[in-house]
């Protein structure tokens, strides 16, 4: 038998004295290192052939008032085993500087800018330290995630709102096309600045965070049990994905074993959420090529799923379904048969529609080779979810780190290697069928039993947990740390949009501006989940 490769031992062998200590928290290995060793070690994890870790999350924690230090955490997902590996370092006392890893690990770019805005910790050597979350009119020295920053402060503007810094390209025949924050359709606000020479896009500069509502700070005002409603309202289209990820984090901390029936129901609702969003997006993508017929049919089908959600749970967006310890809503046998029959109708309906879409040459012509995101680019940016799968990144948490009932429900993961709009549509279509299949499968397997269990332990302040859910867009990550009296000390939320947005800047290069809405819709990212 081959010896099992242990990444932590491997690092210990190699970096030995440079590692302070190694610990394990709820099964996740953490390597604690001094600040000056972060760059070599993370770089090794990222580049080493056996590890090939993608940076999944990078965040900071202010440990005040208990301890005078900041912590920086780096979470890697290893390519082969899909295991997690964490690196952590401390910035004691008044230390505000740390070494940027962005020059070596591109995926850290936005995270380090976010940390600078939210904590005032500066990543030295970062190639682009413009403000990210705080727009220019925000006052200087405001770092909302400092423990001593009052959550309900009233900010005084420095200058009229709306001004942003861009990256400019100058030259003859080079034009700049600013778009937003208010767009033409019913969509969320964001500012896009295209640089074009002739028709093709040379460069796209994204300026987001118009909708920053201070969600992470609001979490810190909540108790562990009380945060579910807020998690549901981070990104409305992913209500269930976010509430599930949040609940799982609390359940890990309280060591709750969620009953089997509840875990199965969670999977059902998660697939329903995937379903309505994917169907809506297929229609939306067709609409962006002016193919209104497909859009009309898809929005009709999406409405059917939403009405089904409403009948089953009393909420079109599945609000109030999850609670810490299980689910708040049960499905009777009759309801389940109604669900499956309705889904059967929807699937037949959708299949007919697919056949109409698939033979429309002008549509396929717009889809093919538009907005290509290469596998290497996707990997460098740590792209997740369906966008990643369409570019050949074979990752799906439902299979790789099973949660809810997926440990007993093998998922056939869709994928493609083309990375264009068409691939993203195809992945969606396969996932629609797969979701319906999974729900049918669950009907067969759904066990009886309670819907909720109680907490087992009361962990101390400073305990933390990480949780991950494969929402319809991709990996949703939550880091949750307890403070005094069961308050939340820190809740880091990562919607998949946060990592996929920067990648869109790469996918549009060389395309024409009229194709941008199409590419954007094929990524279908959340602004609210990104801006927090």
């Amino acid at each position, binding site marked *: 038998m081959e010896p099992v490769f242990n990444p932590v031992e491997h690092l210990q062998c190699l970096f030995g004295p440079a590692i302070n200590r190694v610990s394990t928290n709820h099964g996740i290995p953490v390597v604690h290192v001094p600040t000056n060793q972060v760059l070599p070690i993370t770089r090794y994890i990222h580049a080493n052939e056996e590890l090939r870790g993608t940076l999944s999350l990078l965040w900071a924690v202010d440990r005040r008032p208990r301890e005078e230090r900041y912590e920086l955490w780096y979470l890697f997902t290893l390519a082969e085993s899909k295991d997690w590996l964490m690196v952590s370092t401390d910035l004691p006392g008044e230390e505000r500087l740390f070494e940027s890893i962005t020059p070596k690990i591109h995926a850290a770019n936005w995270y380090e800018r976010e940390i600078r805005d939210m904590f005032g910790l500066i990543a030295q050597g970062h190639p682009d330290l413009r403000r990210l979350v705080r727009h220019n009119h925000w006052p200087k020295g405001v770092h909302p995630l400092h423990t001593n920053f009052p959550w309900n402060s009233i900010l005084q503007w420095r200058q009229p709102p*709306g001004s942003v810094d861009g990256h400019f390209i100058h030259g003859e025949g080079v034009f700049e096309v600013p778009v937003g924050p208010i767009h033409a359709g019913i969509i969320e606000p964001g500012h896009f600045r295209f640089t074009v020479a002739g028709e093709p896009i040379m460069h796209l500069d994204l300026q987001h965070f118009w909708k920053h509502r201070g969600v992470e700070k*609001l979490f810190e005002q909540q108790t562990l049990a009380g945060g579910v409603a807020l998690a549901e309202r981070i990104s409305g289209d992913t209500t269930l994905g976010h509430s599930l990820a949040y609940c799982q984090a609390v359940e890990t901390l309280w060591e709750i074993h969620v009953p089997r029936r509840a875990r199965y129901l969670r999977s059902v609702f998660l697939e329903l959420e995937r379903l309505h969003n994917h169907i809506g997006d297929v229609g939306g993508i067709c609409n962006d090529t002016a193919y209104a017929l497909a859009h009309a049919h898809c929005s009709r089908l999406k409405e059917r799923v939403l009405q089904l959600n409403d009948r089953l749970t009393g909420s*079109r967006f599945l609000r109030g379904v999850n609670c810490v310890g299980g689910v708040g809503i049960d499905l009777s046998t009759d309801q389940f048969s109604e669900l499956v029959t309705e889904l059967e109708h929807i699937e037949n309906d959708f299949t007919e529609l697919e056949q109409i879409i698939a033979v429309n040459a002008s549509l396929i012509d717009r889809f093919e080779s538009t907005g290509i995101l290469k596998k290497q680019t996707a990997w460098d940016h740590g792209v997740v979810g369906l966008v990643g799968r369409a570019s050949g990144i074979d990752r799906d948490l439902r299979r790789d780190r099973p949660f809810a009932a997926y440990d007993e429900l093998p998922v056939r993961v869709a994928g493609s290697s083309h990375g264009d709009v068409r691939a993203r549509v195809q992945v969606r279509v396969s996932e629609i069928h797969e979701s319906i299949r999974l729900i049918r499968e669950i009907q067969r397997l759904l066990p009886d039993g309670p819907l909720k269990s109680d907490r087992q332990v009361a962990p101390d302040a400073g305990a933390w947990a990480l949780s991950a859910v494969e929402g319809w867009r991709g990996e949703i990550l939550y880091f949750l740390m307890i403070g005094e009296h069961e308050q939340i000390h820190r809740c880091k939320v990562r919607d998949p949009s946060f990592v996929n947005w920067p990648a869109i800047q790469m996918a549009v290069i060389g395309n024409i501006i009229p194709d941008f809405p199409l590419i954007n819709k094929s990524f279908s990212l959340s602004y609210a989940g990104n801006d927090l």
Partner: protein
Amino acid sequence: MFKILKKSFKTGIVTGQYPPAPAGQKFSVAPTAQKKAELFRKSLTIREVDTGSCNACEMEMNALANPVYDIERLGIHIAASPRHADALVVTGPVTVSMEGPLKDVFKTTPNPKLVIALGDCAINCGIFKGSYGVTGPVDQHIPVDVRIPGCPPRPSEIIEALTELRKGVTTFTRWFRKFSGNP
């Protein structure tokens, strides 16, 4: 071609196939709003502005345009620019960064105009109330005529509120008023 026609015939007309709005009117229409809405008669052009919502309210606005609700049949049209709009629908609490754009949009919308606050967030900031990131509900920045609560309000509720807003603008009443000399 044949397939497309067959599909359309098979599907039939789906407009109106939705459950009625839950009983008990929750929305509120300012007394002056109905008067203002009269000007637009049976056609109302809406521009939606998101100032920090969680995007569920947007999805319900989008749903209004699908074949099931099809608000165009009620003479309600969604415009691509505030310059073309009679009414602004604002969703979400007003964030620090969206306050400026919201005021700009309000300025560019031609007078007379209506402002509709859609969803709990727009009305009272909802769950985000008090945060450093939000500067207050919509009516702190621009005058609001109609409030449609809910998190998010169902499309049927939005339609109900819009119908209420435009009540009394029938051809008959207009005639009646004209001939009775009682505007």
